[in-house]
């Protein structure tokens, strides 16, 4: 033992010795984040970073939503001259790219970053500095994309950026490079968070939280993180291949030199279909949490729900080709993908049935979060079923790339993900801020969104069946699509209005909302066992878990464990399956290096679309910041 370590031993203070307010004050001091700019740049608190992630993703949601409104206005009547094709193509590309990569994936991870450590009863996420780094990289990637857009360098090749259209010959300038590099940014961030979640769930669960006591939301985001780990590399490979074809003259997608345009589609959809479930799985976790709390009944078929999550995760990798039914691949292969695509309806159906059973046996309490979940049932089931229709090869040859598909996946993504996410905001806002959102505004928000959504997107099924293709910036009057498009635009405006209302509700409630208290909904999971908002160290003492809903099982007092250091960031590492405490794992302290590393990474990515050599010198830059990051600072945390 070195001298420093010895002195640490001397000043070793355990929570066994303390209690009540003093314990909380000391822990808050140990785990707290400095105030001011320095604190903001160096913080590693999963709650602060999770909140940032949430706010940032919602900012991107609103930006992409505005892009959608602009497109709907252009399409409101035939031959409209409001927006030209060049801008329109950038708009729908920005809309899709932002919704998928800057909202859909990160928003689920944002909830996870904030909630998982609370729900599994630990004091910080695993690898907190990686967490801080991932946020900065994500932020820079998103800003990079949108600044490019406002400089008229926004990508205009669709969120799927098919070659050859996005390739070196047909996309001059840097627009397509912007898309490809934004992918790299956001996927690096997304993969980092996924790994943190996986390790947090596997190794940092509170003692006693065996596998069958893990909250369903945690199961959902855990499995989701595994899907991310195996799906996201595909799109990174695809976008890297693309940018290499564009910048250093490789021929991966050039048929004249042995490449193949379909290779891009295979790589992209090998990611692209799991992507849909990456967006959907966290939402199922939110639905489970909300249903259980507001039905006042533990989840019916916990095991079935977990198993169907796993089944969905596996199947989601087996059906990417159903996005390529019109590319002329072998027919028999198509039949297989039809079957697998339809088969995924079984586990999804199973989940729906279990939730309905829970409500059936419970006593539904119709608060706003539950309203959004009911909206989810109504819309998502419809979207899922139209998906079964799309899985049929022959039918797909008719509706593929028409507005029918646009309607379908907005039913799935808005119904399946956005509605539960909005419900989740209403549900956890008290925990995030300590104040309740206005219930009255919430109901207005729900009904406006629900009606607006169905008006906007149901009509698109019809315009699709009337032969309207996707991604057209206008259409001629004699196609008879005008009326339906006008309806869609009106619905879209209602939807937009509902989000304005939502924003107002948030801003207002943050100042004047009713004080929430620890557990306003009388829920059963651990995040409600601590203050709202939680203190920097989450829990004064780490809970000892005896049940799936500890707060329902332990009415009078919560069992906890003691013996952790108070003067030093320490949390419990436990065994993977039965969660026996096995280490007092030190947790990293705030550091500026993740931020610097993110800047270095950003510079590397952006510079590399102007000169391939940036990868080399940028790589060196990143390496330096990483060494600074991992080099021990001689603080207590580093010494065993």
């Amino acid at each position, binding site marked *: 033992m070195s001298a420093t370590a010895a002195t640490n031993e001397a000043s070793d203070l355990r929570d066994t010795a303390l209690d009540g307010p003093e314990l909380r004050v000391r822990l808050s001091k140990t785990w707290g984040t400095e105030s001011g700019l320095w604190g903001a740049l160096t913080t590693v608190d999963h709650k602060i970073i999770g909140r940032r992630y949430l706010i940032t993703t919602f900012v991107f949601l609103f930006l992409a939503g505005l892009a959608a409104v602009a497109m709907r206005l252009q399409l409101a009547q035939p031959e409209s001259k409001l927006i030209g094709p060049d801008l329109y193509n950038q708009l729908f590309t920005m809309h899709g790219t932002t919704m998928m990569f800057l909202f859909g994936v990160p928003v689920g991870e944002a909830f996870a970053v904030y909630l998982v450590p609370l729900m599994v009863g630990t004091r910080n996420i695993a690898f907190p500095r990686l967490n801080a780094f991932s946020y900065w990289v994500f932020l820079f990637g998103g800003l990079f994309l949108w600044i490019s857009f406002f400089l008229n360098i926004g990508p205009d090749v669709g969120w799927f950026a098919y070659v050859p259209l996005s390739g070196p010959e047909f996309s001059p300038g840097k627009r397509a490079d912007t898309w490809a590099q934004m992918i790299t940014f956001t996927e690096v961030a997304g993969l980092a968070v996924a790994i943190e979640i996986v390790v947090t769930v596997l190794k940092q669960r509170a003692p006693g939280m065996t596998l069958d006591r893990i909250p369903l939301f945690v199961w959902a985001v855990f499995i989701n993180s595994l899907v991310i780990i195996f799906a996201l590399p595909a799109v990174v490979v695809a976008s890297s291949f693309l940018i290499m074809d564009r910048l250093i003259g490789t021929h991966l997608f050039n048929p004249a030199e042995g490449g193949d345009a379909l290779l891009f589609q295979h790589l992209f959809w090998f990611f692209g279909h799991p992507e849909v479930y990456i967006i959907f799985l966290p939402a199922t976790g939110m639905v489970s949490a909300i249903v259980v709390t507001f039905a006042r009944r533990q989840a019916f078929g916990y095991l079935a729900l977990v198993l169907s999550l796993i089944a969905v995760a596996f199947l989601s990798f087996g059906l990417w080709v159903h996005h390529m039914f019109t590319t002329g691949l072998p*027919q028999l292969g198509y039949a297989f993908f039809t079957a697998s695509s339809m088969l995924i309806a079984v586990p999804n*159906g199973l989940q729906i049935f279990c939730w309905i059973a829970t409500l*059936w*046996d419970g006593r539904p309490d119709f608060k706003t979060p539950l309203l959004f979940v009911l909206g989810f049932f109504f819309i998502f089931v419809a979207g899922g079923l139209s998906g079964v229709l799309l899985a049929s090869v022959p039918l797909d*040859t008719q509706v593929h790339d028409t507005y029918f598909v646009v309607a379908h996946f907005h039913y799935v993504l808005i119904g399946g993900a956005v509605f539960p996410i909005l419900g989740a905001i209403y549900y956890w806002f008290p925990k995030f801020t300590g104040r309740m959102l206005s219930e009255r505004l919430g109901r207005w928000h729900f009904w406006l969104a629900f009606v607006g959504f169905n008006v906007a997107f149901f009509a698109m099924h019809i315009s699709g069946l009337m032969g309207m293709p996707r991604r057209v910036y206008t259409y001629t009057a004699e*196609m008879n699509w005008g009326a339906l498009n006008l309806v869609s635009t009106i619905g879209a405006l209602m939807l937009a209005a509902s989000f304005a209302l939502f924003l107002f509700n948030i801003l207002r409630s943050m100042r004047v909302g009713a004080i929430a208290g620890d557990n306003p909904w009388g829920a059963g999971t651990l995040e409600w066992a601590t203050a709202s908002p939680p203190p920097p160290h989450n829990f004064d003492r780490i809970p000892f878990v005896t049940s799936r809903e500890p707060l329902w099982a332990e009415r009078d007092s919560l069992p906890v464990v003691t013996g952790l250091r108070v003067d030093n960031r320490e949390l419990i590492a436990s065994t993977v399956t039965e969660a026996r405490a096995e280490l007092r794992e030190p947790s990293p302290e705030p550091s500026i290096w993740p931020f610097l590393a993110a800047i270095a990474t950003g510079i590397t990515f952006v510079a590399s679309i102007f000169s391939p050599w940036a990868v080399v010198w940028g790589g060196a830059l990143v390496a330096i910041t990483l060494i600074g990051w991992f080099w021990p600072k001689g603080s207590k945390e580093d010494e065993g």
Partner: protein
Amino acid sequence: MRRPATILVLLLALAGCNTIQSPLDPASPQAHDLNRLFWIFVAVLGAIWLAVMVALAVALRAPRPAGADPLATDRGRDRRFGIVITGLAVATGVMVLVLTGLSYAAQRRLFAVEEEAVTIRVMGQQWWWQFTYEDVDASRTFITANEFHVPVGKPVKVKLNAVDVIHSFWVPSLMGKQDLIPGRENDIRFVAERPGVYRGQCAEFCGLQHAHMGLLVVVEAPEDFERWREAQISAAQPPTDSERQKGLEAFLSKPCVMCHTVRGTPAGGRTGPDLTHVGGRLTLAAGTLPMSRGNLAAWIVDPHGIKPGVNMPLIKLDPDELNSIAAYLEGLK
């Protein structure tokens, strides 16, 4: 809850009628097949959706007393739920298998190979279609653009290639869509069963003017088709009156010839559509404008006002040059 379902049926019915580009308005056995399959799926899936919504509505009644212990469960009840849900899951599986079967059967019929009477090679390019009628006798192959004719009741084979980026060939009333991919060749087959003009459109995003990449299929009686084919094989008629003569001279002296071909004249450009019989087509600029002398002039004088970003450049013409060129082109029946 039932409201949307009824609206669905009504609107879908509406979608079927009075449209010029709809899969619900079939004009070939293939499209009929697809239309039937579509309605079967809609019926089955719609019924399932309704059932789930009803179950949900029932579930929202509140049997359990207020303040009951959320962890308390009734074993017998749970077992019953378990049985029902297992049954439903199995039912879902069966439904899925049945639909897969139906779908695969249709797929087999749809892509069944049949000896074709006419073979047309489609070249998709930004943002128009080139059609080559192939014939064993090379002198009888010919090229046209954005509109092609087929005889009613005869099997047609369409070979699909792309020159630049990926496009997708889609004439909903005749057949499902199929992509045109550079470096690959796809094909589709169909038999048109009633005469008429059917509209199609590019269905894969292909850049700026993806929205204005339409085409027309004219289905006509075999003898009319043969007459049309003979006319297309022949070179352009020399201009009859003086104005069209002036038009031809202007056409040849201007940039037009750099990109366009008019068989029977020195104009041999390969970049733009073949104009040998442009006057005989129903539309202009890939299904964007109805064919008329006025529209020809409007298109030539400012293509970018009509299709911003199109490859046809703006060229300086004085009014009577413009009119004579329009007249000449209109005369190319």
